[in-house]
């Protein structure tokens, strides 16, 4: 039996408003083992922690229970406090009477009753706790960044500048990401390429950064500080060492009809290609699906014209296995498909385009060389209509439930740029709300209205109606005027919702990082740990965590880098001591546990055991506590009950069950 101290927190009024804290103290005072019980306003405060330390010393406590907020919030805090007072930190249990009790129940009698039961369960458990000691594991001083957009580049640069090796894995042939496709950026109207390209060059030139483009993460194993990752370098069909980037192969390639991914399918590219002129690395890739040589066996022109002899049709995918201490996910976003929004005639008219496509139309290096023209006939448009919230803020499964956040601002930017360059063009924006929280953002939007005369109409569009003459009729509503409007337009631009890159689900599964129903990666804490995944050693950078604009992405990229650096700077990590442990006397060496262990942490040794006086050699399971992550799969599989999980033992859990069902 332990000498248990129970500390009940008021959490201001968060707990005390619905749980009668004094009554809880009173009710548990006579529980088995309890020698001390008290309540306090804020247990997590310095004064609260001092109370705990004082009681540990004065009452010689061997176990403590804190009835407070979720252990996910302050378990670590109270463990440290106990440790400072000389108690083993694993002799601390938390009864979650805030998130699981006071915040969800209204009736004070009912909530108090439940709080008492939760406290009893924790007391029952702590009576069976044993002191545990964390092991140590090494930290590989190298980081992996998945995704080479602005988020990945910034994170990699920051980690590398701190002196650690970084690898970037990018699935397309060049780093740069979505930002490289943008023309100008809000709210300053900087040229996107002008601020991005130097960063791309810096990353490529950095001695600590190694970039794998046209590569994907294939497999991840290990854990924080010691991940092992297989990277698949897809066959580029071009030798990166030999290629000089002269570009002759692309010029001479006879297959020029492949849709250009970089130009969002608005233009074409050759089968051997670099996505854009400033691509890094400046080494082309052969797209085997569109290459005549790969399709028919005939051609081979690129090999003939390549002076460097860099073309290699025989090249195969290559797997590189590397160890990392930290992994940063920066997989970014794409716009949603518009199949469910045919009322906007996107699939029926070439002159209905997405905002990202408009970036490629406005960009001097884009399909129209930066001239604003209709994609159907190349004519200059006179009336352009922008439609906001296409696929965002939807309650049904047609679109996304969230606000995509960036659309209001980029639409103001587009409208402004068009009015600036083509003052004769009328620009109308149909909006539901204009959302501009951000430094200088609302001022920017107001400039679009006041200085550039952009016509903002509050109301949605019901249908875009293509006309026989090729123009478009936009049927919308002006809610402030309570009128339905039919607006003639030459071009319609859809502020299409953004969604996480579809590959992120696959990556999250490999990393065992949590992901939400919208495929955004979940942060460890929504407010206090926004750049960390709940999975230790995994950090989040950019839109993979939630919609954000460039400055926010860069800020988060830096934050993720700092967290990764903080990890890499350590020589050793303390490992979770709540690992599995086999009882040699009960183990019959059947191997069932090893078969279910996802970490290969269980092996078998022949050991001499003393079974009630009988000494014999037996094959028994041994858990490598450095590898064991403490899931407990083996404990349930074990037919003889030899395997148990420290910190969550069979008896501990049963004691909680008993306390609850009492």
């Amino acid at each position: 039996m332990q000498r248990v101290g129970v500390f009940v927190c008021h959490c201001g009024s968060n707990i005390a408003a619905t749980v009668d804290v004094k009554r809880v103290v009173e009710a548990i005072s006579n529980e088995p083992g309890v020698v001390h019980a008290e309540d306090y306003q804020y247990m997590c405060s310095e004064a609260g922690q001092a109370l705990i330390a004082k009681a540990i010393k004065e009452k010689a406590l061997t176990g403590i229970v804190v009835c407070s907020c979720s252990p996910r919030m302050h378990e670590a805090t109270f463990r440290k406090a106990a440790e400072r007072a000389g108690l083993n930190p694993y002799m601390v249990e938390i009864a979650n009477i805030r998130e699981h009790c006071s915040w969800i129940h209204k009736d004070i009698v009912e909530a108090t009753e439940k709080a008492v039961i939760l406290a009893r369960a924790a007391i029952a458990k702590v009576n069976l706790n044993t002191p545990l000691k964390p092991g140590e594991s090494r930290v590989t001083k190298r980081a992996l960044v998945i995704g080479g957009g602005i988020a990945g580049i910034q994170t990699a640069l920051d980690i590398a500048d701190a002196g650690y090796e970084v690898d970037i894995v990018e699935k397309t042939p060049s780093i740069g990401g979505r930002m490289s496709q943008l023309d100008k950026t809000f709210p300053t109207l900087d040229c996107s390429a002008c601020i991005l390209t130097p960063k791309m060059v810096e990353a490529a030139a950095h001695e600590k950064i190694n970039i794998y483009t046209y590569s994907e993460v294939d497999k991840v194993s290990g854990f924080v500080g010691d991940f092992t990752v297989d990277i698949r370098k897809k066959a580029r069909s071009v030798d990166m060492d030999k290629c000089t980037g002269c570009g002759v192969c692309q010029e001479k390639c006879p297959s020029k009809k492949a849709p250009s991914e970089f130009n969002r399918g608005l233009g074409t590219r050759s089968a051997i290609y670099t996505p854009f002129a400033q691509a890094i690395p400046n080494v082309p890739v052969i797209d085997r699906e569109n290459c005549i040589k790969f399709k028919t066996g005939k051609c081979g022109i690129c090999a003939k014209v390549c002076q460097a002899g860099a073309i290699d049709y025989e090249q195969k995918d290559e797997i590189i296995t590397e160890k990392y201490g930290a992994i940063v996910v920066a997989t970014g976003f794409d716009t949603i498909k518009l199949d469910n929004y045919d009322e906007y005639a996107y699939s029926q008219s070439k002159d209905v385009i997405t905002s990202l496509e408009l970036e490629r139309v406005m960009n001097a290096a884009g399909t129209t060389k930066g001239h604003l023209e209709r994609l159907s006939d190349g004519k200059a448009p006179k009336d352009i209509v922008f439609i906001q919230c296409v696929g965002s803020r939807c309650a049904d499964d047609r679109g996304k439930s969230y606000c995509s956040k960036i659309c209001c601002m980029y639409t103001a930017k587009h409208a402004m740029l068009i009015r600036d360059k083509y003052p004769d063009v009328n620009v109308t924006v149909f909006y539901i709300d204009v959302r501009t929280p951000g430094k200088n953002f609302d001022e920017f939007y107001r400039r679009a209205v006041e200085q550039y005369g952009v016509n903002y109409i509050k109301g949605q569009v019901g249908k875009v109606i293509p006309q026989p003459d090729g123009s478009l009729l936009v049927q919308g509503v002006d809610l402030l005027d309570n009128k339905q409007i039919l607006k003639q337009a030459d071009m319609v631009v859809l502020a299409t919702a953004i969604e996480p890159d579809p590959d992120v689900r696959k990556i999250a599964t490999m990393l065992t990082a949590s992901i939400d129903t919208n495929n955004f990666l979940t942060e460890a804490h929504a407010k206090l740990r926004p750049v960390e995944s709940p999975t230790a050693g995994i950090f989040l950078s950019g839109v993979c965590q939630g919609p954000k604009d460039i400055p926010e992405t860069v800020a988060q990229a830096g934050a993720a880098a700092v967290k990764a650096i903080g990890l890499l700077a350590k020589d050793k990590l303390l490992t979770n001591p709540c690992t599995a442990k086999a009882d040699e006397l009960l183990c019959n060496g059947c191997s069932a546990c090893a078969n279910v262990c996802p970490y290969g942490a269980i092996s078998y040794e022949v050991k001499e055991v003393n079974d009630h006086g009988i000494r014999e050699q037996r094959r028994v399971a041994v858990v490598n506590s450095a590898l064991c992550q403490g899931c407990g799969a083996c404990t349930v599989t074990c037919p003889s009950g030899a395997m148990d999980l420290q910190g969550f033992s069979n008896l501990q859990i049963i004691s909680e069950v008993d306390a609850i069902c009492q």
Partner: protein
Amino acid sequence: MKYSYYPGCTLRTKAKDLDDYARASAKALGFELEEIENWQCCGGVYPLGSDEIATKLSSVRALNEAKEKGQPLVTLCSACHHVIKRVNDDMKNVEDIRTRANNYMQLSEPYMGETEVLHFLEVLRDKVGFDKLKEKVVNPLTGVKIGAYYGCLLLRPGKLLQFDNPENPTIIEDFIRAIGAEPVVYPYRNECCGGYISLKEKDMAKNMCDKIMDSAKGFGADMLITACPLCLYNLNNSTTDKLPVYYFTELLAEALGVKEEGKDQ
């Protein structure tokens, strides 16, 4: 292949053509429409209140009869199709309606939405196949530019009817291609013709149909085809220089060379 067939009241009277040509075409295509016995009017409108049961029973009777024969239930009229498909969805998925309807009906075995409800066009697309249909065409309507008029009832609510993409349907266009003609896609093909409003608000319906006609003509259609007797009636009452409007089954029968058989029935 035999299908249970629910003609509906309009096909027995004003829209006899729609029915006759369909039966003749079905025969030519190698399937049979077996009219269910004692069918009653579907009501023309899916019941307006989610709490109504009585108005759904005629559909349930038809559905149950098809179930007993083990056949899918085929309809031609857009309204009947709309009502029966949605009632079937209720019987399949809405526990309250299912229980109350079955309590009232006292069938030997409760009806749980087992019957597959198909529009004749869906039979052509999903069961016969437009490729197969194309092979059976003897008088291709080469060079004829046809606008498909879908209206509302076949398409919406898209999630329940699962007929085609409600904003950009293709089934009738594919049908038009299969009978050798050229489909004309125009934006008003899924806009309402005015529907039942033409009884008391004739001008409103006329305005709607004018828009549809103008749009179809603007895109170069020579004629319109539809599956709905009410759409046909309303479109024929449009005031602008109007295009001829036919039931799709009439052109089908013509393409299959069975138009005369259809007329004789």
